[in-house]
């Protein structure tokens, strides 16, 4: 089976309940939601609703209808950026964005002549929230930050940034792809206007699930138009939630799995998940620091990161380390830029990339021991 240390890309394994949830849907429900006239279609509606409600519960949003499904975080982020930002606007973002945000912003920059300010951060990825305020202009229409970097794991001070955004009445969007499911988030206390999430990482759902939670009353135009189940004679997209943003048949099969993932998290308790991972992160950092010739990027502090650690080994390329780990030891890690080139500019690895390990809820100390032993051997044989 091997050792899987690429949970920041997608979590694996999933709790067995997730698989069973999907199988049960396929075998026993199998219908689409949206005003079906028969029982089974209503069962599909109910399943989708329950999943929405669990998401609302996890992130402490009261309104279930404000939970919107999308195919992944990327689609949610595109909807929000393109739905808010108008010609000539100004946007503020972090220096550590994933391409889901960064490429979308760069495209809008070209098409709508907007300006983008990236708030600087230290090479550990720390942002000073006060810096955000300095970049605010009259035409700033959006502040978008990832909650934790997918390269170095650094958790951003979103609550403070959100406070500033609130003061200036600018929508604050948080890309929680790397934190949703492992880090406690309270959409109101954390001053988040829109939270985007992906279902297949720490929420334990299958790929093709994700979405956003609207906690903002501003005007957001949908990215796509199409069928929503009801009121088919009306020729335009409905303006009520969540249907406004959910044109086309939902991924109910995926949502059935996501529902079980969410229940698993809520039953286990997000704080228990967080504490368990933190312990393993601390263990991992300590063990990696034993290794000579190994440079860890980012904070090296389990209190400041999610379970993502990037490193390089002197005299070996990141690709080679990843390849050897997989082929000789069955250990799965990532190498390269991890879809976040600006983050690599910050840590000085834009040309080399890094080896990235990412820890999930089901990893154990033994997995880390196997990794450390393998790395030591690879260095010795080099």
């Amino acid at each position: 089976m091997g050792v899987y240390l690429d949970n920041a890309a997608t979590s694996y394994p999933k709790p067995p309940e997730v698989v069973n949830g999907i199988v049960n849907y396929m075998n026993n429900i199998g219908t689409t939601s949206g005003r079906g006239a028969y029982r089974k279609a209503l069962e599909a509606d109910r399943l989708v609703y329950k999943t929405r409600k669990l998401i609302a519960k996890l992130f402490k949003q009261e309104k279930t209808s404000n939970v919107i499904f999308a195919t992944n975080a990327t689609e949610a982020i595109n909807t929000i950026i393109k739905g808010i930002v108008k010609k000539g606007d100004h946007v503020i973002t972090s220096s550590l964005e994933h391409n889901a945000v960064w490429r979308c912003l760069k495209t809008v920059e070209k098409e709508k002549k907007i300006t983008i300010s990236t708030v600087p951060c230290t090479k550990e990825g720390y942002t000073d929230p006060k810096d955000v305020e300095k970049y605010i202009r009259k035409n700033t229409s959006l502040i978008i930050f990832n909650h934790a970097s997918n390269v170095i794991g650094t958790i951003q001070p979103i609550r403070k940034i959100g406070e500033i955004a609130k003061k200036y009445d600018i929508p604050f969007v948080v890309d929680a792809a790397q934190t949703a499911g492992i880090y406690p988030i309270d959409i109101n206390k954390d001053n988040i206007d829109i939270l985007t999430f992906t279902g297949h990482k720490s929420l334990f759902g299958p790929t093709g699930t994700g979405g956003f939670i609207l906690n903002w009353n501003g005007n957001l135009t949908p990215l796509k138009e199409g069928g929503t189940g009801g009121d088919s004679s009306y020729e335009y997209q409905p303006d009520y939630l969540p249907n406004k943003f959910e044109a086309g048949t939902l991924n109910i099969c995926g949502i059935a799995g996501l529902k079980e993932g969410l229940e698993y998290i809520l039953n286990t308790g997000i704080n228990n998940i967080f504490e368990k991972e933190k312990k393993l992160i601390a263990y991992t950092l300590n063990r990696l620091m034993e290794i000579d010739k190994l440079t860890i990027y980012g904070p090296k502090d389990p209190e400041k990161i999610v379970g993502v650690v990037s490193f390089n080994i002197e005299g070996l390329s990141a690709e080679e380390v990843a390849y050897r780990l997989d082929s000789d030891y069955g250990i799965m890690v990532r190498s390269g830029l991890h879809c976040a080139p600006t983050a690599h500019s910050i840590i000085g690895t834009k040309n080399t990339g890094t080896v990235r390990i990412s820890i999930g809820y089901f990893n154990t100390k033994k997995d880390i021991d196997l990794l450390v032993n393998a790395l030591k051997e690879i260095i010795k044989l080099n």
Partner: protein
Amino acid sequence: MYLDEIFITYMQSCIADSKKIRFKGKLSTDIGEVLPYINRVIKNAIFNKNIPSLTFTKEFRIITLYKDSIAVSKAINETDAYEIIDMVKDLINNTYNNKDNIQPLYEMRTKPTAIELYNHLPKINCKRCGESTCMAFASKLLMGQKNIKKCSHLFTTEFKPQLERIKDLLQMMGYF
């Protein structure tokens, strides 16, 4: 838990306003005994002890509870439907858990009047319903002694808004 589940069994667009939906559901517990308690708790509810039924509104939505079923009209969408279901379930369970502290109320506090119904009828006294006047028909409607379908004029497109309004009023009385 007193009431475990409400299963939605039917969901369709509203007749007059296709942007809204109506739905029906089944209750996993017979809640007949709790209805008078809810009647006390919800100040503007309409309780019809003969059926028994209890109708109340949540903003523009009209919700009617029977002893083992529920009918709702003017909900927004599926999500709204299930949110209403959750809200009603909590209302029933909380009322049940607290019923030692609540004085049950068996009366109908307010009800639509025959005049109110009459105002939405065609007022042409055509007698096709078997009554001599529209006012007489309105009184029978209110008592549940006549079916609205007897007024064929109301079912023409011209009277669609009036029909919808009368149906709302009759739902409040528990007749739907």
